[in-house]
């Protein structure tokens, strides 16, 4: 179980204590990797982005303000880094690639059929997310997959609440359409 991140620990890390910083890395690298993977759908890219996010955190930790949650700050860094990646040439080339989510941890206590169906639905959700515009994808990932509040999402993206709502509406609409289309092709009732 990772140690709790206290303001004192953050201060220690900001003073250059790498042991204190290692505790922060061990505590938060999991969620940073998850967010990065949800954006880029690639293990290696997600690891590279995670590493870059923590290097940026290390360089800028001295400017950290305690009134902002460290996780919110990390969400901001990783989201910006992922949006940069998606707007880069390499990111755009990957746009049409179908994501592979083989390393997903499946929920336990499910029958194999239910597990398969759940995996299929999850893959569909991620594929739908890949078809969204970068802003819609960012809002969808932060609000619906990461579970951030509307205010936190607005803060992380530096986007007015009205724009967050608008992007969320379009994102949800596209995800619903993607699920409906898939089930229509398979001639099965939607959900």
């Amino acid at each position, binding site marked *: 179980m990772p140690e709790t991140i206290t303001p004192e620990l953050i201060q220690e890390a900001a003073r250059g204590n790498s042991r204190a910083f290692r505790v922060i890395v061990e505590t938060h690298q999991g969620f940073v990797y998850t967010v990065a993977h*949800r954006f880029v759908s690639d293990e290696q890219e997600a690891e590279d982005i995670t590493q870059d996010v923590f290097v940026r955190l290390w360089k800028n930790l001295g400017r950290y303000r305690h009134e902002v949650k460290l996780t919110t700050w990390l969400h901001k860094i990783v989201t910006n880094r992922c949006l940069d990646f998606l707007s880069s040439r390499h990111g755009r080339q990957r746009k049409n690639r179908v994501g592979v989510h083989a390393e997903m941890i499946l*929920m336990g206590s499910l029958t194999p059929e239910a597990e398969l169906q759940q995996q299929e*639905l999850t893959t569909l959700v991620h594929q739908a997310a890949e078809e969204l515009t970068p802003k819609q994808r960012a809002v969808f990932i932060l609000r619906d997959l990461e579970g951030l509040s509307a205010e936190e999402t607005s803060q992380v993206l530096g986007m007015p609440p009205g724009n967050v709502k608008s992007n969320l509406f379009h994102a949800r609409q596209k*995800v619903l359409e993607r699920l409906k289309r898939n089930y229509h092709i398979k001639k099965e009732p939607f959900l």
Partner: protein
Amino acid sequence: MTDCNVQNIYLYDELTDAEKQSVDDHVAACKSCRQLLEQVNATRLVVRTAAQQKPEPRNATRLTSSIMTAVTSESSSSRNPIVRAFDQVYLRYGMAAVSIGLLVLFVVEQQMPTRHPVERLYQGKTVALAMPPLGHVVQQRKQRSISLYACAQSASCNQPLIASIKSKRVTWK
């Protein structure tokens, strides 16, 4: 009955209680909106399930090590005063300004008329070294006097010579 507001159905969980009540009232009377709300709620369940399945790094320990290695190398390079100095924005701007200044000087120098090297040579201390030996000069002058004498003897040669000397306003003694 209020008009269909599709956006409010998709953003049902974002609405205030009063707005939710308004949607509920509308949905109770509108079949298409009711169906849409059911689909939106079903999708939300699917997305929630997808949210619980978190991708994780294959080897978390290795990832931590690579992050710490990157951080350590970053901090050692930032401790180097030369690297740190070049990291300063003002220094970078200053270097850029100096480079542009040198470039402008070079272009201006190229545009200016070129002076003959001989002119520079006679302005400098190397003038004595660049002159021919004294004996050679005397010999040249002697040769020229002989040529002039020979020319003065010939009518076909002396007339143009005299004309050219007059045009240069040189006193002939």
